[in-house]
């Protein structure tokens, strides 16, 4: 029998505390694989967000700093200025990056910090139990938009790749998804890409990943996959938004 895949060395456990069907476990695994393949585990410093991914140090065996809600881009900026030879990864949810920490991400990107960012867009606040996020779709019901998000009073969902692409110092922006194997593989390639960009000193690179939150959305894991395919992809088109080499 051929072993096609085994557990990456950077990954600490093969099971996680994440809810069934949650996307964080998949994404953390992809990060671990990319770190192994590029051989950069001992040069990584990960930033953990506030939100479901805060416990990422339980799963990835690297130096980690746990940041206040939304502040990771400021923390990472300093880490990179002190250690320009290390790899600094931002890992942020949509509440983290697009609500409380909007200023920090915009300004880190605008300064052209040589950082790699992963932005997990699950259209909700997972950890606190499924409240409305800036990325919640119009009409989507959450615990704080029980009648469905309306544009009047709540605004339209923020498209982060599109927004950040207006900043000239952003160098790579791509939106991917993890609702299918094909898309998981594309996401993996994008994660490698943002690491490689940092390695080559290219500048601020981000991948936005559409991810499932079945418990937050109050649907089954299968329905969560369908929600991405049928609802989220329409509003959040996948693809490369910027690529400056």
């Amino acid at each position: 029998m051929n072993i096609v895949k085994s557990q990456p060395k950077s990954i600490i456990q093969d099971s996680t505390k994440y809810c069934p069907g949650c996307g964080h476990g998949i994404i953390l695994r992809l990060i671990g694989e990319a770190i192994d393949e590029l051989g950069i585990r001992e040069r990584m410093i990960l930033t953990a967000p506030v939100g479901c991914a805060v416990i990422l140090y339980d799963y990835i065996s690297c130096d980690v700093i746990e940041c206040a809600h939304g502040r990771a881009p400021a923390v990472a900026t300093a880490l990179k200025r002190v250690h320009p030879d290390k790899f600094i990864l931002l890992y942020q949810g949509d509440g983290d990056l697009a609500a409380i920490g909007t200023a920090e991400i915009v300004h880190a990107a605008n300064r052209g910090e040589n950082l790699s960012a992963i932005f997990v867009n699950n259209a909700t606040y997972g950890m606190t139990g499924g409240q409305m996020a800036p990325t919640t779709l119009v009409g989507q019901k959450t615990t704080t938009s029980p009648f469905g998000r309306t544009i009047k009073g709540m605004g339209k969902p923020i498209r982060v790749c599109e927004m950040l692409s207006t900043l000239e110092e952003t160098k790579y922006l791509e939106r991917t998804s993890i609702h299918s194997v094909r898309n998981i593989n594309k996401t993996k390639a994008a994660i490698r890409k943002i690491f490689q960009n940092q390695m080559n000193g290219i500048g601020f690179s981000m991948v936005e990943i559409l991810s499932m939150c079945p418990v937050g959305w109050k649907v089954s894991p299968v329905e969560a996959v369908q929600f991405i395919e049928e609802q989220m992809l329409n509003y959040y088109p996948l693809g490369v938004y910027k690529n400056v080499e």
Partner: protein
Amino acid sequence: MADEKKTETQDKQMLMKGNEAVGEASIKAGCYCYFAYPITPQTETPEYLSKRMEEENRVFIQAESEVAAINMVFGASAAGVRVMTSSSSPGISLKQEGISYIAGAELPCVIVNVCRGGPGLGNIEASQADYFQSTRGGGHGDYRCIVLAPNSVQECYDMTLNAFDLADYYRMPVLIQSDGIIGQLVEPFQMHPYKPMFDKFPPKDWALTGCAGRKPNVVRTLYLNPANGLELLNRKLEQKYNKIKSELRWCETYNCDNADIIVIAYGASSRIAKSAIKKHNTNGTKIGMFRPKTLWPWPDVELVDIARKNKNVKFLVIEMSMGQMLEDVLLTLMDVVPKKNIYFYGMGGGWNPTPDSVYEKISEIMKK
């Protein structure tokens, strides 16, 4: 080169603003990163350091906000270097989130607050109304910061040198509580070369440098288990704070033996008080002064000693706030001095008492 080396080891007489002296001291103490956002009356520090950090090939960032600046401090400290930020009252309020995280993660850093009038946008004049905020934690949770209160440009310089050492030694944030007068004051001072306060500092083996050749380091403040996690952290912090209380209480006493009245004041108001005291003392009365130089830990043992020696002494607390340090004085003296012998004179408008008004206050108390 040789000449330059020589001057580095000698005292130099300098003329600078308090805010600039803070900046130069941070350079001398080896501060590698400085992050800030402009606010009056502290803006001379970022202006000064934007130039000096560049000259020294170190890191200066004008952050997008005080929130970002303090989180940059968090990152740089975790990365293992000496780091400082400065601001004034409304900006320090914004930094409280980050200060709580830094205290929780037991990281060293220096934070300068050049206080102005408040609450709210208040005004840009000197004030001491952030005393509660700096000595009681300020952010959420059970934590303390060491708080140093300079009253001259000399002390702005010296205490900044000390602040970096204390931060590294105790692994915690150290606040310098200056005010608009002390920050803006220009006066000569001795620029001492940096000499570490301690022979040995704890190694920064917790720093994030990539995990080559060791187990990964995690800088964190989340402890979901109350009994095995957060309780242990808070017990450990409590022990550390108790140790600091026993080791670090700085104060200046002036003319306290057999005094009729002792004025208690810190920072700018202590200088104003001193002028009034000097004028009184030429009139045959005996007025002393007690000046805390560490606002936390508060020099309680020292004040109690003075009060015990002289049972009839009265105390006059002077603040550029509505009675914040007064609470520490009352707590300290509650078993030693009758409450009626403790007087208070405060200004809340973001301005200062004058030597004449302090003189009047003292005269009133003398008549009672």
